[in-house]
């Protein structure tokens, strides 16, 4: 079973050279720490920066320089700043090759819900609706089940949607799942996790091949 870091490491393996990448708040943010050797990618944050670097050294924080999670950041050489309209022009115009974001629920046709629990909680969609509606390549990073132990990998989402038929891949603490033809496909299992456990914790239709390799981290 993976911890959050493990999920981030696994997703980092999906990075391809030359990609511009948008990382959501939470686990996705950690992906930036595990870029495979020999791979060069550039991180976009939808509040208006391209070329994000690591967090600043203590005492060097700049209130004017944050990411979409409102965290203080730095930028690399070759970075650029721009307004929110231009930022979403990049996203909507498919200039960003990969989006990684968290979710409350994902369905087997690729729907995603991550912004609202009616009557209880409203975070707002922020840039998530633009991101999922635009990117060709969307990976969800999340836990397989919610705190009540219910599967978040569903036949159909029960919460208000963020986007429809957009998620291509889900990486959880248990498995890597691909979504195609209206089903989840089990691609890899986390170290020490059995296929049976994954099957039992997945509510949506899951295609399980004869051999399911263990992740190599």
């Amino acid at each position: 079973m993976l911890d959050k870091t493990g999920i981030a490491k696994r997703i980092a393996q999906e990075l391809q050279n030359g990609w511009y990448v948008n990382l959501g708040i939470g686990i996705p943010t950690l992906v930036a720490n595990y870029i495979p050797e020999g791979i060069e990618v550039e991180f976009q944050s939808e509040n208006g920066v391209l070329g994000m670097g690591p967090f600043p050294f203590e005492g060097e924080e700049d209130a004017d320089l944050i990411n979409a999670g409102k965290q203080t950041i730095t930028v690399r050489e070759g970075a650029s700043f721009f307004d929110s309209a231009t930022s979403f022009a990049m996203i909507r115009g498919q200039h960003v090759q990969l989006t990684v974001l968290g979710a409350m629920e994902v369905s087997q046709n690729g729907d995603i819900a991550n912004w609202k629990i009616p009557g209880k909680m409203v975070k707002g969609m922020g840039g998530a609706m633009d991101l999922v509606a635009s990117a060709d390549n969307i990976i969800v990073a999340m836990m397989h089940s919610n705190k009540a132990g219910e599967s978040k990998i569903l036949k159909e989402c029960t919460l208000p949607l963020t986007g429809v038929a957009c998620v291509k891949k889900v990486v959880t603490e248990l498995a890597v799942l691909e979504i195609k033809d209206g089903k989840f496909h089990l691609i890899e299992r986390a170290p020490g996790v059995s296929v049976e456990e994954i099957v039992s914790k997945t509510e949506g239709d899951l295609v399980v091949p004869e051999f399911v390799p263990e992740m190599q981290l």
Partner: protein
Amino acid sequence: MNKLVKNVEEALIGVEDGMTLMIGGFGLCGIPENSIAELVKLGTKNLTCISNNAGVDDFGLGLLLQTKQIKKMISSYVGENDEFERQMLSGELEVDLIPQGSLAERCRAGGAGIPAFFTPAGYGTEVAEGKEVRIYNGKPHILEEALTADFAIVKAWKGDTEGNLVFKATAMNFNPMMAMAGKITVAEVEELVPAGQLDPNHIHTPGIFVQRIFKGEKFEKRIEQRTTRKRS
């Protein structure tokens, strides 16, 4: 064209109960602190505020939520503001939540004389309810309409007496589009310079979009999430 006003009081003359205001900023980054403080002082009521979010409970637009001066918020994110979420869930506050990119583009459209445009964002979600859907390039898009405001209140790093603005880093965010979309646009700046001091090649918001400019008295520039790394 001289756009200079003396202070925040003069800058906000004409803001009245029931008006629609655009307020620049993302989180606490790039927000017009001095104007927000003045709005609290003025006590203007029943405002509709267009702003990506509402700061935190005790800073940024959160201040106007605490004083119940806001009737309606048009935003993309509630996240870091408990009072915002509470007022919304209890029904005290009308809230129109829209995708961040659509919000940015709708402001730009409002300033650019484009009354409506198609975007894929929000298709198949609550956001699309009642909106026209059309397929382009094999993908469904929804029709979104422009936003404008009685006043747009923005914050820039540098500005000149002609209203030209330069923003710093990610404090730019929504400020340039909102500056375009205000019937009256007010800019508060950290540094005010005479016309001719800013490089005309590097002005983010040309003065034509700004009606009033003043130097903000004090900028706290609070940091919302102070994340750092250790020196190795």
